[in-house]
């Protein structure tokens, strides 16, 4: 029987998990690189094939204009929305994008759901390799604060990847499920979820009933453009300014170098969660940008970003009618909650130590797997009652929004409205659906438009009842009924920032072009390519001046590792090749250190000469 999995489709990393039928516990599935974290990066190879995950991430440095990361930030968004952000990306937004953003990778153009589908396909392949069985259904998580268009785009991505999306689950709620199963928590729980690109806060009430545990979300709030990416971009801005100032070097024209710098800065950010200080070393032409950063300085920089999370936190608490001190538990989710500053500020705000027992990178995927288990096998006596994060309304006279379903309503939720005609013989009634909290339509997010058909008759005689339903995934469905005839009427909804069914059909056909090559075959090709480049680099290094002083036993170890790798490359076991690549990497460490020291020494000397 085909399997069902839970997927965390993240801004930076994505993961796939399942519930172990024997233990009833959720588990993440490690991929071919030994980690369950699949970088959410996609690259178009010059030969026209698609690469996703870890190999694509490596191409960020070599082929930045053919490689895309953080595509989640573009899901369900219009060209106008992303204009500001475009500056931060190395890939290009297609100038001919209409309402749905289109991304140019090399010679081809893709929509964000198509890109996300490549990541989902990769995860699907991981799971199929793990089970040695097909995977055709999934529960996928989304930020709680995602609007309808962003949710639809995620569901479309699943469809394009050949997955039936059983449910979209809000990330903080999924995390609460995983924690609930883990710790048997009760009472009022706040989930603070700061990921790579999005921030969510959800307030839940955990209730025991005779049938099982109910996880009822009381309120949720967030910012779909606030996360670790913002910290990276801030660091990048600082470093670029300093490099420009000190060396008169502008990296603008060198996307490869910018990606290298970004990578070094992200590394520094990670180190500062453990150490009190770190050093960024970035070689430039004939000089080196070297920057010592203390945690204190780093925290001063990022404090304004972290403070931005507390606006939504206060809003969610107010909507739930609670004070911070009333919460029984606080849970931290998302990679960015590893930052000591975040932990301190959250603890300070709620007056209690937050839970961090479960790996913040994995907990959302684990929760998605739990929900998948609930849906397919009724595996756990748990019921999730989530809410819609934004109010739903329709445009009325004068561009004012009439709210139909208030934010934080438990979903599924619905509202009915009666419509009639304003002039004689009018045959259509235009409806404009919006999402948001503001009073005017132009300040809210346009979701969709549709036309109600009525037979010609005097004004005010027509009576069409429209039922707006937000389903358990937080996605709007519209149905209309003519009250005079009792007939249901098909409603063709035109999404404002989404793909139509016809477009998805066309993309599905096109995607056959990318029909998955045999997974193991692809892994083997990737592993061999990588082995080749590391062997080549090793040879080059051994011939360098730095290698001259290398002790003999280091040299012997390198030679032995290289020979073993060459032999494995002839075979077809990609896992073996990967293992030997790691061994060779280990063996060449002393050599790499010597080479780095020489570079540093040379630049310091160079600078002294200049000074003289």
């Amino acid at each position, binding site marked *: 029987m085909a399997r069902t999995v839970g997927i965390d489709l993240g801004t930076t990393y994505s993961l796939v998990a399942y519930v172990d039928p024997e233990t009833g516990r959720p588990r993440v599935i490690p991929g071919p690189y030994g980690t369950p974290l699949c970088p959410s990066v996609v690259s178009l190879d010059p030969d026209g094939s698609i690469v996703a995950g870890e190999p694509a991430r490596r191409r960020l440095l070599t082929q930045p204009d053919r490689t895309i990361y953080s595509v989640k930030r573009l899901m369900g968004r219009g060209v106008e929305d992303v204009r500001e952000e475009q500056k931060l990306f190395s890939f290009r937004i297609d100038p001919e994008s209409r309402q749905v953003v289109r991304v140019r990778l090399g010679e081809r153009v893709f929509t964000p759901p198509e890109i996300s589908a490549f990541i989902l396909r990769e995860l699907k392949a991981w799971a199929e390799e793990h089970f040695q069985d097909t995977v055709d259904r999934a529960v996928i998580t989304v930020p709680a604060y995602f609007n309808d268009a962003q949710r639809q785009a995620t569901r479309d991505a699943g469809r394009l990847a050949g997955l039936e999306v*059983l449910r979209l689950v809000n990330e903080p709620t999924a995390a609460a499920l995983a924690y609930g199963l883990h710790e048997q928590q009760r009472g009022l729980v706040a989930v603070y979820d700061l990921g790579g690109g999005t921030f969510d806060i959800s307030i839940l009430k955990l209730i025991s009933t005779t049938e099982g545990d*109910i996880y009822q979300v009381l309120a949720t709030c967030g910012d779909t453009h606030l996360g670790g990416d913002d910290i990276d971009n801030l660091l990048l801005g600082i470093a670029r300014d300093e490099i420009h100032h000190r060396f008169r070097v502008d990296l603008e024209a060198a996307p490869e170098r910018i990606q290298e710098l970004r990578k070094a800065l992200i590394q520094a950010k990670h180190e500062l969660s453990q150490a009190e200080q770190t050093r960024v070393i970035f070689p430039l032409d004939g000089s080196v940008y070297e920057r010592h950063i203390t945690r204190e300085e780093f925290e001063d920089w990022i404090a304004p970003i972290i403070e931005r999370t507390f606006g939504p936190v206060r809003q969610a608490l107010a909507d739930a009618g609670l004070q911070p001190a009333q919460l029984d538990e606080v849970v931290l989710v998302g990679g960015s909650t590893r930052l000591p500053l975040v932990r301190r500020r959250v603890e300070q705000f709620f007056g209690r130590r937050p839970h961090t027992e479960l790996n913040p990178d994995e907990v959302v995927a684990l929760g998605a797997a739990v929900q998948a288990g609930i849906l*397919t096998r009724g595996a756990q006596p748990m019921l*999730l009652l989530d809410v819609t994060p934004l109010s739903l309304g329709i445009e009325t006279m004068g561009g004012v929004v009439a709210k139909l379903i208030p934010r934080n309503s*438990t979903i599924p*939720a*619905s509202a009915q409205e009666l419509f009639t005609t304003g002039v004689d013989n009018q045959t259509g009634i235009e409806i404009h659906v919006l999402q948001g909290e503001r009073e005017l339509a132009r300040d809210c997010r346009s979701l969709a438009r549709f036309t109600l058909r009525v037979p010609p008759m005097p004004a005010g005689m027509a009576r069409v009842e429209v039922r707006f*339903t937000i389903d358990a995934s937080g996605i709007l469905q519209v149905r209309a009924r003519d009250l005079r005839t009792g007939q249901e009427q098909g409603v063709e909804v035109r999404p404002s920032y989404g793909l139509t069914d016809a477009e998805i059909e066309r993309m599905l056909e096109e995607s056959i072009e990318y029909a998955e090559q045999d997974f193991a075959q692809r892994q083997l090709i990737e592993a061999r390519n990588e082995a080749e480049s590391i062997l080549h680099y090793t040879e080059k290094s051994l011939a360098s001046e730095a290698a001259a002083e290398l002790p003999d036993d280091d040299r012997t170890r390198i030679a032995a590792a290289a020979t073993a790798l060459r032999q494995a490359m002839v075979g077809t076991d990609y896992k073996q090749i990967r293992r030997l690549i790691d061994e060779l990497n280990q063996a060449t460490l002393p050599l790499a250190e010597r080479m780095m020291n020489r570079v540093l020494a040379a630049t310091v000397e160079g600078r002294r000469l200049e000074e003289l």
Partner: protein
Amino acid sequence: MKEAQTLTARELHCWNCGAAAGGTHFCPSCGKIQPLPPDTDYFAFFGLPRRLGLDAHALEASYHELSWRLHPDRFAQASEAERRLSLDRSAQLNDAFRTLRDPVRRVEYLLWLTGRRREGENKQQAPPELLEEVFELNEALEELRQARRTGGDGAAATSLRRQLEAERQKLETMLEAVDAELVEASAAWDRALDSGAAVEPLLDRLNGILNRRSYIRNLVENVRQELAAD
């Protein structure tokens, strides 16, 4: 209203086995989930009479019990038709709970059910005894906005703010009084139901109270926002 009444009068049969199902959540004969009747009555959905006094704990327990039975999670493996019925019924359950658990929305809903409140008509009548008050309040609000625009002199703005703060407290006291009135009128409605007394005058009274309440609440909200804008 007319159409709805004729439809309810019609006997409702189970879509699956044809047994009389009478608008219940599940068919008493075959146990399949049933479509929503065409007219909505949130009270009936919970099997409650149209009383305004409600035991909040009992309502919540009943909500949880029905959630277990009606939520789409419970129908993930069911037929497409049943999944859709579950979506409709659980949406209705959530709508009903959201409405009935709040004492003000509950009254609003009762008035809607009885035809007193439709399509936003006369929702915000200015209570005559408040007219003068409202006039002065709006003037003060306008002056404060003016002062903020021009950056005007601080002393005048401070005194305006003090005046508005006093006004806000007064309005909030009024709001409390109206809420107390609403509680009293709600209890009177329940008593009338029990004794079989005339309910029409009570519906008019409840409607009047709600109109005044929403008017005062808007005023409070305006003043609050204006004060918070500084």
